[in-house]
């Protein structure tokens, strides 16, 4: 596989949600995502930023195959260089997802080993010894041992649960991970642990990340390219340093001036 070829491409994705009345008539239509195209490269992070309701999570879910686009399609490049075109919701082991809330995204009634094995079974893995080795490898990659595999989610703190969420994504050897606000619910000290882990995994495994976030300091630190979403569209896309140095779109400018200052001496009374 050539390294400069994108591992995932989204072509003109749109998603319209319609609200229906009691009798099934469409009463209103909401265009959540409107003609979004983007591409992800191996070993790189693409950050998708924007306010709540701008369509970033819906875009992430279409890329992962959780929801079917109203129009447009996604192509995922397989290891042998062939591309799979995806137009409907469908599980793809190459594309995995990490969710924002590590409390509600793990089944509370299953042990960690069971949660990770389920991911493997979904993609067709049945051999018990393979299941065991793969789960051990994934837990090891996020800093857990065999002893942790026997415990239940409630026995872990928020940061630890997010590691389990990462292990669950890693266990099927994906090439692309969609990270939907993976650190927003965590304290800063724990957030730093998770960000460091994600960067290490990217360097070790050559993963492509789509990083959905509203935290511009995380964007600057972690991403190579940024897409800014506003009302369902990508209104600006640039390499990360360029976006911060010279934002073009009005909304991007507003977003950047809204980021809290990092020292009280930078306060201005005229700050909008």
């Amino acid at each position, binding site marked *: 596989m050539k390294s400069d070829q994108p591992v995932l491409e989204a072509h003109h994705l749109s998603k319209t949600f319609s609200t229906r009345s009691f009798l099934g008539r469409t009463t209103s239509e909401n265009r959540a995502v409107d003609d979004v195209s983007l591409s992800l490269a191996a070993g790189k992070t693409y950050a998708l930023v924007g*306010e*709540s*309701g701008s369509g970033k999570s819906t875009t992430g879910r279409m890329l992962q195959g959780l929801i079917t686009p109203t129009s447009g399609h996604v192509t995922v490049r397989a290891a042998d260089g062939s591309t799979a075109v995806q137009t409907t919701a469908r599980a793809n082991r190459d594309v995995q997802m990490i969710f924002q809330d590590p409390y509600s995204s793990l089944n509370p009634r299953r042990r960690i080993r069971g949660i990770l094995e389920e991911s493997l079974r979904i993609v067709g893995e049945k051999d018990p010894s393979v299941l065991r080795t793969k789960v051990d490898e994934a837990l090891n990659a996020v800093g857990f041992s065999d002893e942790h595999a026997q415990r239940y989610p409630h026995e872990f*703190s*928020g*940061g*630890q649960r997010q590691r389990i969420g990462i292990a669950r994504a890693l266990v099927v050897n994906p090439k692309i991970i969609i990270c939907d606000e993976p650190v927003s619910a965590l*304290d*800063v*000290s*724990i*957030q*730093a*642990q998770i*960000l*460091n882990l994600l*960067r*290490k995994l990217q360097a070790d495994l050559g993963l492509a990340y789509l990083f959905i976030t*509203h*935290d*511009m*300091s*995380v964007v*600057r*630190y*972690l991403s190579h390219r940024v897409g800014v979403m506003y009302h369902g569209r990508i209104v600006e896309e640039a390499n990360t340093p360029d976006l911060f140095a010279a934002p073009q779109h009005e909304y991007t400018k*507003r*977003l950047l*001036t*809204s*980021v*809290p*200052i*990092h*020292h*009280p*001496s*930078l*306060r201005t009374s005229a*700050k*909008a």
Partner: protein
Amino acid sequence: MSNNLLEVIDLRTSFDTERGNVTAVDGVSFSVAPGEVVGVVGESGCGKSVTAESILQLLDPSSTSYSGQILFGGDNLLRLSEDALRKVRGYRISMIFQDPMSALNPVFTIGDQLTEAILAHKRIGKRRARAFAIELLAKTGIPEPESRMRQYPHQLSGGQRQRVMIAMALSCDPELLIADEPTTALDVTTQAQILKLLIELKDEFDAGILFITHDLGVVAEICDRVVVMYLGEVVEYTDVHTLFDNPAHPYTRGLMASTPGIDADPEDDLPIIPGAVPTLHHIPQGCRFAERCALVLPECRQQTIELEVLSDDHASRCIRSAELATGASLSNGGVR
């Protein structure tokens, strides 16, 4: 008595739990002057919210006990009767919360709820209360306040709901506003607007604000003084400039370092605070932060660490505070 609006002295709040009694707030003291914004900072589980809720005694009375003093307007709030306390809550001290959706009643309109709050506190007629509600909404910058009055909470965005909560909190001209993570659930652009609004309103009403947050960026934006909490204790307090220029506690320094700033080099790992906040059932001996501290010395675990006063308005609960406050870069020679 000093001219402080609120003075919390040696506050202790403990809960009865299934696994025994735990002390969530352990000997916390601080004060808020009129017109001042005091930030309470720390990770989840450090006792910030319990401190805020203890001031108005909002926690379940059957399992919570308080000790110490909370002096407000010449009274110790912890000694007041339930009736007297009700005349403080919402009248003289108001509170806004992180999640405005769960603090608003979904089956009543914004107008009903705001008017009800005003009628509960002011001796005015319904019509005047309604006019006053519209005026308050306008003051918080909500567009078309009259039509908002007829809407239900689910029809508003998160930022607008928080503005409604602020309007409600201001309806009785409180002397003190307690804001518990009021912008954490909001987008950054909305957060910036709400912070700006709080500052404007504070200046207009000359109220004090106690601002609970985990976000040091927010602290840098609006706080005058800061109290840093760790596992139920105050570990450092000072004015906001000293906090950012010369943090004297390793925990404060760790929080600052692990926030990716503009100078963070994307080639380097972020500095971390290893581990997580222990639970209240497992409070370590000696310094409570020692387990996670990069500068720990053997003596840190052998004694109870007291707050060490470094200057007029700066204290830190660390035996190495004096060295740290000079800005020196220290190590512990590899001790763990």
